[in-house]
């Protein structure tokens, strides 16, 4: 039996087919089109102090139409209404507008579109409970504690079509709950639970773990002086560092123009031999195709045993620098980044740390010296001082400022065995279909400056 989420994505697929038909009908001889759809039907609930702050629903479909004539092209993105007649008219208007502007544009020497047709269809539909019921369940579980959090759930879809007859469809119905339990001021524990099917027992287990950790956060805090400290980064903390590397770090264009913070890895710099990083589309939730219609490989190796071995190469960059495109988006940012696990059992991480900082989350990372891949950022949420393998006290927030060439290079001591899959909670403009799969990292020392 079809769930409401599945009905929504099937209906979206039918709308997409109709819009593609309208596009095809609007073409003049000699014209080609490339179309991308991004849509969702999402319920959002924002929670604060164990209550509902703001709850609502959003329905949206955005169709990007690229009109191509020879080597000239331009794009018009439209919010679609779902009304067949209105949408057909909007598509015809958009195409006419693009047609009128093409003569004013120059030929694009870096235009690269697929030569063949590679259609695909994936539907990772889940069965999601009503958002109102999940909100009740979460707030019931938060009795007696100060919970602030955010729940988003519902189907998302991405479509691709071109005038050559290629058609790709990717749908996924997911939920994403992120919540923090606060003890006081900035002392809190942050947790996340995301996936395709809500499991009450799995949520209860995570909430119990969060409450247990909250008791540790409630201890009197310790203020550390700036200096170098041994540290263990949980996967959620390492995510902030790997996340900032995603901004230009693995971009072929940024590497070719020497703007990548990892550009020096093409010369002498290396990470530790235990570090291997890949864009693992097959293991994530991102679509298996990109905006020009190129299929994404299951995996693109980026760092292997500490050496930079690859890059995310968009079609445009491929044409500009005579490289092979490998399914990257226009920004050449990862959407399914994965770091290989190491040898350390997660259960042994506390003992291996011995004395130092246990860092649950990092926050607001940015480059302080991009060519040196030096990054600054803050500790946040559950960060503890540990002595002889035992948690002693929560730590007041600290600023780090250190190079990735040290953090994941000369100072990296171990990675945990089992990388953790984290679905992106990003919801700027629309919910993001992206993920990261990362281990925890034990680091000999990190430089803290404030």
């Amino acid at each position, binding site marked *: 039996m079809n769930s409401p989420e599945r009905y929504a994505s099937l209906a979206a697929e039918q709308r997409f087919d109709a819009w593609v038909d309208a596009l095809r009908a609007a073409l003049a001889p000699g014209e080609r089109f490339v179309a991308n759809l991004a849509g969702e039907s999402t319920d959002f609930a924002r929670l604060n102090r164990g209550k509902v702050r703001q709850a609502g629903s959003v329905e949206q479909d955005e169709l990007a139409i690229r009109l191509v004539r020879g080597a000239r092209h331009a794009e018009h993105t439209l919010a679609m209404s779902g009304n067949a007649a209105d949408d057909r008219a*909007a598509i015809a208007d958009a195409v006419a507008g693009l047609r009128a502007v093409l003569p004013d544009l120059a030929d694009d020497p870096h235009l690269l579109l697929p030569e063949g047709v590679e259609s695909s269809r994936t539907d990772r539909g889940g069965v999601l409970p009503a958002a109102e019921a999940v909100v009740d369940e979460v707030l019931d579980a938060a009795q007696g504690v100060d919970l602030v959090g955010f729940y988003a759930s519902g189907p998302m879809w991405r479509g691709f079509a071109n005038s050559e007859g290629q058609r790709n469809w990717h749908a996924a119905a997911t939920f994403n709950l992120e919540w923090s339990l606060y003890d006081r001021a900035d002392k809190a524990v942050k947790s996340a639970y995301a996936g395709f099917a809500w499991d009450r027992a799995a949520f209860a287990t995570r909430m119990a773990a969060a409450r247990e950790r909250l008791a540790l956060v409630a201890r009197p805090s310790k203020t550390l002086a700036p200096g170098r400290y041994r540290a263990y980064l949980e996967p959620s903390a390492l995510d902030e560092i790997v996340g900032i590397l995603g901004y230009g770090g693995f971009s072929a264009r940024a590497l070719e123009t020497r703007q990548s913070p990892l550009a020096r890895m093409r010369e002498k710099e290396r990470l530790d031999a235990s570090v291997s990083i890949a864009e693992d589309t097959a293991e994530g939730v991102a679509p298996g195709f990109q905006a020009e219609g190129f299929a994404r490989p299951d995996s693109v190796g980026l760092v292997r045993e500490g050496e930079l071995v690859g890059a995310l190469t968009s079609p445009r960059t491929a044409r500009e620098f005579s490289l092979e495109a490998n399914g990257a988006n226009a920004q050449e940012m990862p959407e399914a980044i994965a770091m290989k696990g190491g040898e350390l059992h997660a259960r042994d991480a506390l003992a291996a740390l011995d004395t130092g900082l246990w860092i649950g989350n990092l926050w607001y990372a940015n480059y302080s010296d991009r060519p040196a891949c030096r990054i600054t950022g803050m500790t946040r949420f559950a960060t503890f001082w540990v002595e002889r393998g035992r948690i002693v006290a929560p730590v007041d927030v600290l600023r780090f400022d250190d190079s990735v060439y040290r953090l994941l290079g000369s100072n990296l001591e171990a990675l945990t065995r089992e990388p953790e899959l984290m679905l992106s909670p990003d919801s700027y403009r629309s919910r993001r279909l992206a993920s990261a799969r990362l281990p925890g990292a034990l680091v000999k020392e990190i430089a803290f400056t404030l």
Partner: protein
Amino acid sequence: MPLDLPRVAIDADYWSLRFVDQTATTCAVRKNVPLPLERSRDRGLMATVYADGGYGYAATSDLTSGGIQRALERARAWAAATASRALFDTRPLPRPAPKGNYASPSVDAPDPAPREWYELLMAESTAAAIDPRIVDWSASIEVRHATHRLVTSEGGDIVQRYRMMLPGLAATAHADGDTQTRTLNGYRGICQQGGPEVLARFGFVGAGRRVAEEALEIVLAPNCPSGRMDVLLAPDQMVLQIHESIGHPLELDRILGDERNFAGTSFVTPDMFGSYRYGSPLLNVTFDPTRAEELASYGYDDEGTRAERTFLIRDGILERPLGGAISQQRAGLPGVANARADNWNRPPIDRMANLNIEPGDKSFGELVARVERGVFMQTNASWSIDDSRNKFQFGCERGMMIENGRLAGVVKNPNYRGVSSSFWRSLAAVGDASTLEVLGTPYCGKGEPAQIIWVGHASPACVFTEVDVFGGES
């Protein structure tokens, strides 16, 4: 009118319909190659309903009467379903009935044709290609038009029309193993309401070559020294300093805890308003939606509150937060008209709009002359601050040493760090109106679901004493 409204039939204490219709056109030239033109048209509506003491919203791009009615009903269902667990009772909240209009400067003037934009951008791009060590460069323009209409159950009806220009220039130099990028006032740092006069205001034409020359100058310059010294911050760094360490901490929804799971909390607490010394007596900060060219000027916020120029910090003393009508009611504090949404598909929350530092009485020459040893820092390049908006570290594109009251050589990687709660008390001199620039950013992120909104910041150049300054890796 931008929308033919149907007869609304909904059993609610209060409802509003907020309609947004916006277009954007982006033209860019990178390394003398025109990038394909990008256009967008985005239309949709958010229904907000207060019912049974609860609050619900629903957003749709289906603007038929049936679509609007369904959105209202969905919003009402959310309000009813969550009323018993609502953080606050919506029944005592204001039910605005505003009527009015707002329009950007030259809102109806025609835009240049794409061909004209590309010719202008190509000229700047070509002028930037001055040396093989310039490895990347670009020129771009984004033009936005938007109509926002808010209709309320109490008879309110506001139409606000915007025209915004967001030009950009950047050049990257690579030499001796180092790479440095110089921009014209930062990435989209130039962003104002109005037409092509915005570009003229910032000397966009002819700036391509200068930006490239400065990129080369920076990449060959020595590293910024380390130590405690004075800094003179240019307006295109003050923008970031204001934004992160005054704007965000004063957002009332942060102070009320709404953002603690994502964007963070604030070191500011409700008891501080009216007495807390935020900065030196030279610090005067206004919320000013009335400055015509500034990016976030408007007549009313997205809940229908009329916007007025208001002091937030006067002579260094904290007076009021950045909080809209709902937050004001929750906190029992006065605020401003700053409940804003970045689009039709996101609900209003407390945001910065135009947040400005009022000019002082020192010319730029006088600001430099009072510094014995320090760094003049221009154009933000890096920003990071803790979740209470206290411990920060910022970096700039270009620094110039100041020695014995005179500008000296250029340095690269100028960074500084500090703590908001003490940093503003080290404000030692404020530039006069001749040093003031009206800038901003179209990329202020916050909220769950997340939103990226446009904000304006006007600031003079300012001097701070005894700041922890440092450079890049040696």
